[in-house]
């Protein structure tokens, strides 16, 4: 859909650099990235509110660069919902139908169905200001869907809701998108949202897509250190690649230890690398250490009880921000600060990435 698209606002800095992305029909794609990474700009280009400085945006194979937003027929849910405050909920919903010259009875029917779909049937005569945040969110969703677009864009739609409501709405949105078979492009900076809702996630940074993958692949097999850092919690150790052979390499850490790792985007010995290990893939219980696991000495600095998990901060290879997570199982040992332990992990969970 995006073909070598570039965007610049001031003619000096490219906000979006060479974006190539195609979205399949019925797919739920999330654009994830820190603020200023270009994800919202991409969404606005897709909606037609920003023009691409270079490149084509294709919809069903047809370039839509020069089609004004109101003729694109793309539904959109805005960050602050953008419900028209001077219209009732019903009028808000019937607005897109009115501008399409749809007859009154059909309009009413569609509005009613859309409201029922988001379980807001009895609120048609209320003003948006009389609704709670979650209710406004549902109405905004219903309004973007009422004219039956095939593509719906959502710009951080859940940002203003509290945690519980957000989780509930995440579920609602995915269910609706699935039931209606619509294509959704969803922008967020919340990785949990991205991981739980999407078929595919595009991680944005610095105007480029760093990685485009299914949520599980993205989490477990990050392709570069930005993605590894950005998605989930991550421990990094820096060092120099000593040798590479197929799917295994050895890395000499800055503190002197030599560890075995899985080479992801390092290519030659002598290269600097960041080795990344997920906190929950680190084990200190010797009985559970798997065959072939690599071990390292560590000193316990802090033990944090979080209910379902224990978080322990360790000093490993000269760094004192190494975190491990342990499930609060009946036999789990609670570590004491000052204790020295042996930690270990499987070499394939330890990914040598770009520095």
């Amino acid at each position, binding site marked *: 859909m995006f073909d070598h698209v570039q965007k610049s606002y001031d003619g000096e800095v490219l906000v979006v650099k060479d974006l190539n992305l195609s979205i399949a029909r019925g797919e739920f794609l999330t654009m994830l990235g820190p603020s200023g990474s270009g994800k919202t700009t991409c969404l606005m280009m897709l*909606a*037609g*509110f920003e023009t691409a400085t270079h490149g084509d945006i294709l919809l069903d194979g047809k370039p839509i660069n020069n089609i*004004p*937003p*109101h*003729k*694109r*027929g*793309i*539904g*959109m849910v*805005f*960050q*602050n919902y*953008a*419900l*028209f*405050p*001077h219209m009732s909920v019903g009028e808000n919903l019937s*607005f*897109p139908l009115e*501008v*399409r010259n749809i007859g009154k009875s059909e309009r009413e029917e569609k509005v009613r169905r859309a409201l029922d779909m988001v379980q807001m049937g009895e609120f048609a005569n209320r003003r948006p200001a009389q609704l709670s945040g979650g209710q406004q969110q549902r109405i905004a969703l219903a*309004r*973007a869907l009422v*004219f039956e677009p095939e593509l719906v*864009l959502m710009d951080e739609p859940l940002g203003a809701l509290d945690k519980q409501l957000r989780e509930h709405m995440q579920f609602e949105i995915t269910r609706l998108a699935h039931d209606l078979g619509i294509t959704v492009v969803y922008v967020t900076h919340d990785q949990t949202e991205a991981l739980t809702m999407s078929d595919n996630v595009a991680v944005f940074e610095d105007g480029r897509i760093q990685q485009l993958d299914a949520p599980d692949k993205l989490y477990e097999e990050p392709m570069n250190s930005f993605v590894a850092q950005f998605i989930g919690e991550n421990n990094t150790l820096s060092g120099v690649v000593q040798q590479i052979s197929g799917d295994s390499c050895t890395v000499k850490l800055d503190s002197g230890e030599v560890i075995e790792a899985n080479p992801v985007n390092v290519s030659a010995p002598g290269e600097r690398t960041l080795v990344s290990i997920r906190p929950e893939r680190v084990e200190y219980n010797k009985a559970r250490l798997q065959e072939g696991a690599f071990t390292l000495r560590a000193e316990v600095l802090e033990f944090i009880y979080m209910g379902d998990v224990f978080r322990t901060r360790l000093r490993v290879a000269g760094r004192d921000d190494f975190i491990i997570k342990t499930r609060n199982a009946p036999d789990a040992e609670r570590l004491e600060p000052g204790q020295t332990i042996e930690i270990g992990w499987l070499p394939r969970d330890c990914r040598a990435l770009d520095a």
Partner: protein
Amino acid sequence: MSDQTDTGTDTGPVLTADGRSLKQSLERALRREKLRALMLIAPLLIYVLVTFIAPIADMLFRSVENRIVSETLPRTVIALQDWDYESGEMPGEPVFAALAADLREAVKAKKHTRLGTRLNYELTGMSSLFRQIGRKIKRMKDDKPFREQFLKVNKKWGDPEVWGVIQTYSSPFTAGYFLNAVDLRLTPRGVEQRPESERVYIMLFKRTILLSALITFMTFLLGYPIAYLLSNLKMKTANMLMILVLLPFWTSLLVRTSAWKVLLQQQGVVNDVLVWLGLIADDHRLELINNATGTVIAMTHILLPFMILPLYSVMKTIPPSYVRAAKSLGATPFTAFRRVYFPQSIPGIGAGAILVFILAIGYYITPALVGGRSGTFISNRIAYHISVSLNWGLGAALGALLLVLVLALYALYDKIVGIDNVKLG
């Protein structure tokens, strides 16, 4: 149950730690706050009372006050009570005698000319009549009938009209000024219209309202796009342009108005340019000033910022996402503007329109300078009565009517648009 006896507060009023009722101590605490607040606004309150409320009250009082007749001619007023204007005859000797006695005192106190001036508002010629009789009254003889002596001085004293006016205006309060202000007059025969040639105020009121409405509409027409542009520009550019909008505020009103005189007069810049462009013939130069056109042009310019500022501050609060949302829902840019943006800018239009209209309706300097004959407002007439003709009663009545008019329009606006729908930002 035992702790209930300890506190003992479950049924009675809630008590504070030292045993006073909570309500009382709350009231005491609040009273001090209120007193302090009152002290803070006291200087302004006193200032407003003395310089604003009091003069308005005084003005309203003056518009109906009419004690001068009964105070200057107390005996005559009583003697005239039995006289019937409808009889068509002059009153009898006792009335003339009473008038003579009143006049002698009035002349001594030099009050008779003021009375003459007052009565002259109602019947032309009264002023000179009183001045003349004032000069002759000293030489009148007490032993001869006063009626003949008065008639010898001036035959007009035999005219029932003269006596009718004195009788009609003998009460201490009168609606006469207000009737005057709407081109009516109170005669001994009752309320009647003024002759065609003297009717001016209704026409002036109408013109004031019409031109003010036109000026309001013009400022809206010119101001709306500017406010829209300002609210959509970057802060830095918007501030620059805002200074340009405010620039007229920092220039003297007289300078601005005089500048319009230079621009708009028949040999002025605008006409010269139009002739040079060949759009009008040299002998058909447009009359752009000293008429209603001049007033509208100059006042639209002067009042424009009062429309732009409220519009701007309201538009600033309309997030661009609304129009975007409308477009994404399939509305053309025009429909998005008409159905989504415009309705949300109405509070600004309301605030701006009220401001401009109320300022325009009482405007005085500009119409006086560029209005000529057909572009002056009712306020110019009020100023004339206050400072030139010194008919303060009529001036006050006109002012009171203007006040009522503005309040009525305000109420009308409240009914149609709703006053809580006015926003200044």
